[in-house]
C-alpha cells in the first residue's frame, strides 16, 4: 500500500504586480518533484489583511505549517509563541552565513535569544530619479549624494517643465499607514538617531539626532518639493505617478519597483539588453546624512508555526526556498531581491551603476526597525504623529515647535506603552 501524502499548509502574501498564487505554485512544483510524499496547500492574503489573519489563526491555534512574515512582524509573532525556535536546525544546516546581515537581523531578534525565521526575499529602499530631469538642469547623479546637495537639487528641479508638463521634485507617502514610517526612517538613521533606545525600553525618535532627520524630511515637504494635496495615493499609485505619469523627478521606493517599471533589469542572460526605461530612469543610494548613509531593508521571512504537526517537512520546504536556485527563480519572477548573498551577487552581476546601488544598499546600508515585541503598536503611534505633521503642513500651521511638541507627546505615549 502506498504511504498517504502529507499536506503542508503555507500562507503567503501577494506581491504587488504579480499573480502570487500561480507563481508560488509553480515554484513549489520544483520542491514537490523532489518530495513526492508531500503536497503543499497555498493560501494567499493581501498584506493589509494578513496580519489580522495570522493573529486570529494563532489565537485559535489553527495555523498553517509555514508563515510568510514581514520582517517587522517576526519578533512580535515569536513573542506570541507562534513561531518555532529553529536555532538548532539552523546551526545543524549551517545556513546563517548564506544570508547578508540586514536580511538576517529580524530572524534572530536580540530580545528573544533564538532563531525564529529564515529570510526569504528583500525589498530595499532606494532613490529613483529621472535622467532627463537632471540633464535639463545640467546635474549628474552626484547631486543626490548628500543631504545638502539633495535639498539643493530638489530646489533646482521643483516646478520645471518637461515636455509641457510641470513637475514637482519629489513624491512622498501621505496615507496614514506604515509608508510614513518607511519615509522618515532613513533620515532618522542617517542623522545618527533611532526610533528606540538600544535596549528597546525607551522612545528616542524625539531626541536630537532623530529629530534632525525628521525635521529635514518634513522641511522638504514644507518647502513644497513634495505635494501633499490632491487625492491620496497608495504606494503602487505613487510609483505610477513617477514612472508612468512622470509627475515628479525623484522618488523613494522599495526595490520592487525596479522590475515592475524597468522591465528586463534582472535578466541575467548573456543576450539581455538594457530596456528603454533603464535609459530614462536611474537608481541612486539614499543621500548621506551627518551620520552616514542608511536605508530601510524590509522584505519577508519564512517561519514554521509552533502549532505545526509537520515541522520537519516544513523545514525542508523553507530550506528549499533559501537555496540559490529557488531564490533566483522566485525573486526574478516577483521582482524582489534575494536574501542569499550568492543569489544576490548573481542577480546583480551586471557591472552597471544601478546594480551596484542595489547591492550596496542591501549589504552596506540596509537596516531594519527595532526588533521589539511591541513594534507593531509603537509603529501605530508613530504613524499617527507623522500623519499629524503632514496635516499641519497641509493647513500651513507647521512649525518646528509644533513638530517638537508632537514628537515629544508621541514619545510619551510610546514610553507608556512600553511600561505596560
Amino acid at each position, binding site marked *: 500500500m502506498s504511504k498517504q501524502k502529507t499536506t503542508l499548509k503555507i500562507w503567503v502574501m501577494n506581491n504587488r504586480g504579480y499573480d*502570487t498564487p500561480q507563481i508560488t505554485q509553480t515554484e513549489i512544483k520544483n520542491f514537490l518533484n523532489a518530495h513526492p510524499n508531500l503536497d503543499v496547500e497555498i493560501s494567499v492574503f493581501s498584506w*493589509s489583511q494578513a496580519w*489580522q489573519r495570522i493573529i486570529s489563526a494563532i489565537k485559535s491555534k489553527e495555523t498553517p505549517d509555514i508563515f510568510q512574515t514581514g520582517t517587522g512582524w517576526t519578533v512580535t509573532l515569536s*513573542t*506570541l509563541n507562534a513561531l518555532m525556535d529553529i536555532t538548532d536546525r539552523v546551526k545543524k544546516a549551517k545556513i546563517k552565513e548564506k544570508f547578508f546581515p540586514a536580511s538576517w537581523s529580524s530572524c534572530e531578534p536580540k530580545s528573544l535569544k533564538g532563531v525564529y525565521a529564515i529570510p526569504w526575499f528583500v525589498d530595499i529602499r532606494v532613490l529613483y530619479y529621472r535622467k532627463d530631469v537632471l540633464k535639463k538642469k545640467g546635474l549628474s547623479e552626484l547631486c543626490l549624494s548628500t543631504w545638502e546637495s539633495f535639498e539643493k537639487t530638489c530646489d533646482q528641479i521643483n516646478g520645471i517643465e518637461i515636455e509641457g508638463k510641470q513637475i514637482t521634485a519629489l513624491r512622498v507617502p501621505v496615507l496614514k499607514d506604515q509608508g510614513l514610517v518607511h519615509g522618515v526612517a532613513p533620515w532618522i538613521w542617517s542623522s545618527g538617531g533611532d526610533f528606540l533606545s538600544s535596549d528597546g525600553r525607551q522612545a528616542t525618535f524625539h531626541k536630537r539626532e532623530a529629530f534632525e532627520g525628521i525635521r529635514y524630511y518634513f522641511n522638504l515637504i514644507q518647502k513644497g518639493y513634495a505635494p501633499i494635496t490632491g487625492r491620496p495615493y497608495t*504606494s503602487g499609485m505613487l510609483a505610477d505617478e513617477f514612472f508612468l505619469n512622470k509627475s515628479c523627478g525623484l522618488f523613494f521606493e522599495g526595490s520592487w519597483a525596479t522590475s515592475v517599471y524597468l522591465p528586463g533589469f534582472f535578466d541575467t542572460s548573456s543576450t539581455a539588453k538594457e530596456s528603454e526605461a533603464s535609459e530614462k530612469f536611474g537608481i541612486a543610494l539614499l543621500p548621506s546624512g551627518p551620520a552616514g548613509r542608511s536605508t530601510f531593508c524590509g522584505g519577508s521571512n519564512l517561519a514554521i508555526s509552533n502549532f505545526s504537526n509537520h515541522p520537519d517537512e516544513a523545514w525542508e520546504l523553507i530550506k528549499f526556498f533559501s537555496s540559490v536556485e529557488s531564490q533566483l527563480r522566485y525573486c526574478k519572477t516577483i521582482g524582489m531581491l534575494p536574501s542569499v548573498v550568492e543569489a544576490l551577487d548573481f542577480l546583480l552581476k551586471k557591472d552597471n551603476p544601478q546594480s551596484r546601488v542595489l547591492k550596496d544598499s542591501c549589504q552596506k546600508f540596509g537596516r531594519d526597525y527595532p526588533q521589539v515585541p511591541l513594534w507593531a503598536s509603537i509603529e501605530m503611534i508613530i504613524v499617527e504623529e507623522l500623519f499629524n505633521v503632514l496635516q499641519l503642513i497641509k493647513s500651513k500651521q507647521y512649525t518646528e515647535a509644533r513638530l517638537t511638541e508632537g514628537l515629544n507627546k508621541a514619545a510619551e505615549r510610546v514610553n507608556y506603552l512600553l511600561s505596560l
Partner: protein
Amino acid sequence: MISKKGHSHADDVKITSRHSELLRNTAEAFQQLEQGMDYAVSVGLKNLLEDLDCHAIHLYVYHEITNFLECSQAIGGGKGIIVGDGRMPVSDKAEDKISQVYLGKQDYTLWDNDTNICVAVKRLQDRIGVLVVDRGATKRPVEEDLARIVDFANEFGLGIYNFRNYLNSERQRSRFLTFSKIWVAMASTMKYEDILSVILRSVIAELKFDRVKLFLVDKENNLLVGSLVADVRGVFQTIEQERYPLKEGVNRLVDTILGKEVPKEEGEISKLIFDMPLEVKGSRIGVMAIENIFSRRFISLEDIENIKIFANQAALTIENAQLFRKIEELSIQDGLTGVYVLRHMRQRLEEEIARADRFKENLTLMIIDVDDFKKYNDTYGHPFGDKLLQQFAGALMKNVRGVDLVGRYGGDEFLVIFPRLSQSKSTEVGARIIQAIRDAKYTIEDKKISFTVSIGMATFPDDASSKESLIKRSDEALYWAKQHGKNRVCLASEISG
C-alpha cells in the same frame, strides 16, 4: 443599462453577454462561503478587469473601528492581483469625493479627465465601501464603463453583505460555545486561586486577548491590589507588588474602580486597551485591565460586549470564592493560635510535595517547639501557656515568607512547610528563626519573658520522598536537637536516617 455608443450591434450583444456571464460568475464565487470572502473578491475583481480591460481596480471596504476605507484588494491590467495597502479616512468634507460617494451623498465620482471612477459598494441602506477604477487609456465612453462598474459594485455589495451575515452567525455560534466552556470551567472549582486562574486563562484562551491583569479591591486597607497577570505568551504570575491607594487620580485603574471619568489614551492605541470593572450588586470589587498591545488587534464593540458578559459572571464567581475561602479558613484554622490545623497541613503537604515533584523542586518541612514549655504551664498555669503559644505562633508567622505555610502539630509543636527551600539553605533559615524568637521580648500577664525553641528539618526529595516519611524525618531531627542541648537546628541529613 450599458451604453452602446461606439460599438456595432454584434459587438454589443457579445459584450453584453460576456458581461452577464462575468457577473454571474462573480455571484457564484460569493456563494462559495467555504472558500472565504477574499477568494470571491479576487474572482470578482478579475472578472471586472476582464470586462473593462482597464489599468487598475481597487476595492476599499469601510472599517468602523478606524473610520477608514481600507484597501481590501486591488488588481492591475494583465498582471493579476496587485494589492494596494492603502487606506483613506472618511470625512464629511465636500472636496473628499470618495467619502461623499461612500456616504451616499453622490452616486459616483470621476476625476483626472474621467479616467478614474469611484462607485459605492452597498446593499440597500448598508454601506460597505467603494470601487475605484483607473480606466487607463481607454477610448470607451465613460457611461458604458460606469454602468458595468455599477453592476459589479452591486454584486460586491450583495456578496459581501451575505458573507458578513454568514460570518456573524458563525461568530455567534462560536461565542455560545466559548461561554459554555468558560461557565463549565468556572463551575468546576470553588477554590479561590483556581477560580482566578480559570478567569484569567479564559480571557486569553477563549476571548482571545493578548494580556489581562486582574486587580482586586482590598477594602480593609483601602487599596487596589494586583492579583495576577496572564498573557498570550504563556506568562502567568502574581502582581502583588502592584498596589495603589484608592484615591482619585492615582491611575486609570483606580479611577475606574471609583467610577470616575477616565481620560482615554490618545489615538488608535486607545482601541488596544480596555479596563473592565468587576461589579457585584453595584459595588466594584476589582478591575480587569485587558490589552491587545502585541497583536495590535483593535478591541471591537463585539469584544466589549463579550467582556461585559464575562465580567458579570466572573465578578460573582470571585466573590463567591472569596466567601468560600473565608468559610474554609475558619474551618482550617486553629482556634487558639490562628495557624492551620494539622489536618489541613497534612493535605497541603501532600499537594506541595506533588507540585515539587512535578516541577523538580525542593521542599523543606520544619517541626519547631518551645524549649521547656511544660515549665511555663506548671509555673504559671495553662492560660499563661496558651498565651505564650499565641505569641510564639505570631512570632513564627512574622519570620516566614508569604508562601510558607504554618500549622499546629499538637501541644507546643508547630509545622512549617517551606516550598522551594533546598537542604543547603535550610540551616540558614532555621538559624534565623531560632535567633529571631530568642531575641524577641514577650509580655504575658504583665510578665516579661523570653524563651528558646528547637527545630528539626527535613527536605524533599533529599531526605524523604513521601509526606509521612518527611514528617518522621523532621520529627527525628527535632528529637536529636532536643537531645543535644535544645535552642538549636538539626537537619535530618545530619543524623542517620
